[in-house]
């Protein structure tokens, strides 16, 4: 649903979140943002939010914080599935093209060698395995992350540029069933956060 957000705005500059015209629809709360100055308090806060049972929330950091996905209770990444599918497809494709082209479609004797054998096309199948598995890993990352998505409401946060520099923030989204503007704000303030800010949509 959030993807529609982009389409409703006519100013194309908004795609990259700069010189944004005042939004006419500033009433709805998107969520609450808590900022942190170091990874230690961020990690502890993530653990507590996870224990409190929130589901629609996320942590934003300029680099991957070690073990944070575990503290957030995230399941294992699905990217390896894409890689496996890519790799298997690559190997089969490599072998199939060598068989189809060398034995089935145009058999041609070269140096008295067989038209097809699983040995000589092995380097080709090997490289195809790696190529398609890498495509799987690369595009799998984009698919599982639902990227590219050039704008996201969290980027409207006034201190956003710091998040790709040296700041850390946690966003609790209003659509979460446990979300209550006042209660959640109080909860976030107990978590050693630097500040708690309401993010409007």
């Amino acid at each position, binding site marked *: 649903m959030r993807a529609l957000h982009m389409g409703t705005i006519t100013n194309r500059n908004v795609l990259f979140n700069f010189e944004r015209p005042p939004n006419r629809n500033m009433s709805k709360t998107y969520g609450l943002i808590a900022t942190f100055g170091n990874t230690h308090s961020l990690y502890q806060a993530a653990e507590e939010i996870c224990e409190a049972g929130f589901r629609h929330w996320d942590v934003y950091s300029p680099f991957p914080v070690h073990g944070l996905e575990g503290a957030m209770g995230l399941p294992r990444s699905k990217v390896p599935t894409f890689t496996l599918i890519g790799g298997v497809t690559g190997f089969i494709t*490599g072998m199939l093209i060598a068989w189809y082209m060398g034995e089935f479609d145009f058999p041609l004797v070269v140096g008295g060698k067989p038209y097809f054998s699983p040995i000589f096309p092995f380097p*080709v199948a090997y490289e195809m395995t790696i190529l398609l598995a890498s495509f799987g890993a690369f595009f799998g*990352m984009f698919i599982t*992350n639902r990227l590219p998505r050039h704008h996201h409401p969290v980027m409207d946060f006034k201190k956003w540029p710091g998040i790709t520099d040296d700041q850390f923030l946690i966003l609790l989204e209003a659509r979460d069933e446990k979300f209550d503007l006042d209660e959640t704000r109080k909860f976030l303030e107990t978590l050693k956060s630097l500040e708690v800010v309401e993010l409007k949509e």
Partner: protein
Amino acid sequence: MAYTEEIPLVRPVVLDEVRQTHMPRKPLVENNRSFHWITEKICRIVEEKTPNWWWVCFLVAGFVASFTGVGLFYLVSTGVGVWGLRGPVYWGWAIVNFVFWIGIGHAGTLISAILCLLKQKWRTSINRTAEAMTIFAVMCAGIFPLFHVGRIWFAWWLFPLPNAQGVWPNFRSPLEWDVFAVSTYFMVSLLFWYMGMLPDLATLRDRAKKTWRKYFYGVLAMGWRGSCRHWANYEMAYLLLAGLSTPLVLSVHTIVSFDFAVANLPGWHTTIFPPYFVAGAIFSGFGMVLTLILPLRSIYGLHDLITQYHIDNMCKITLATGSMVGYGYAMEFFISWYGANPYEGFAFINRAFGPYWWAYLIMISCNVISPQLFWFRWIRENTALVWIVSIFVNIGMWFERFVIIVTSLANEYIPANWDYFTPTVVDIFTFIGTFGFFSFMFLLFIRFLPLMAMAEIKHVIPQADPHMHHEGPSHGNHHEPERTL
């Protein structure tokens, strides 16, 4: 224990207790720099006004690159004969240059993939530059076989694509394996490089002031926002790409060596070629990484990020791979004698003492002797000397390929066919031009893209560890994770 007390002269073999030795790890970023310092340092390189030296280098590089352009134009309009390719040396400089440039690329993948799997955190300061080097080196390499086909407009026949003749490529040929290996290598290196750059492009996007920068980095960053859910998938994909690039980089130079090893020519037909080619490739690549990184380090004052520890490590890898290459040379000689094949024996005697003795001498002195200087700490700590040795490594590795390819072909089985190979002017200028092209691309890279993996460097400094209490940068290095021996 009671036994040993009864005989006081006998000391217990094992210590009563194991005393742990604490060896603090060398800091990867010196002077305990903050996250913001790292961002500023690296982003400023692309944000500052274009320095004058950059323009000078850029114009010179562009001019030198034009040699390749003119040389290739002349080749296409005249014929491959302009490359001095004639019997018996039908594979002259073209293949020498191809193998040379492909080899250079291998250090980039070693640093980004193999060192990632081995959890060598020092790689974070140099991996971006090394990967860029890989990509541009593979571009330079690709030029030679591509134009060697002569009629460049038919180069697409290399790929198994349907054509009017209904004939397919020959999959029994190592040259066809090479097509797959090199194109896969280029593609995967590019994906790995780009994916690693996403978080840093997002940083540049968020810092951008000018409109064109916002669009340029905004589009390239793909909307990266550093979400933890994204990082989890990203790190998994990164690890997988590292795991895939490792067998890839080993296979690429193996397959390149098959181009020679599968042939029956004395001096080529040997099973040592794959490992020895891979070691040589990594050796030459580290030579080039040092050649590129050391000037960048002093121009941009990156001494806190590329520390003496990094240079030491690179020198040691150069030393190790250089020694492997030296072992390869020695073993080739031994086997040619031990194998008792007179043609093999002749090929190697001829290599060292025949008409190309000078090339062999350059190869041995640059590749085997010069890296041995890295045993000495004072040499590793003298940046100028390290740089000079790295240049020797580059020269030596080019000559290695020249020696392997030209000496074996020029004096093969039938003495009536023998010839002394000399390159043409077109050969020389086309090759020199590739250095211009490489520098041209590299200069564009340092001007427009993040030179170092900021997110990865931030990840490995002590402040990034969520299980350490850190009150501020004043606490210095005692927060360093310690290694227990």
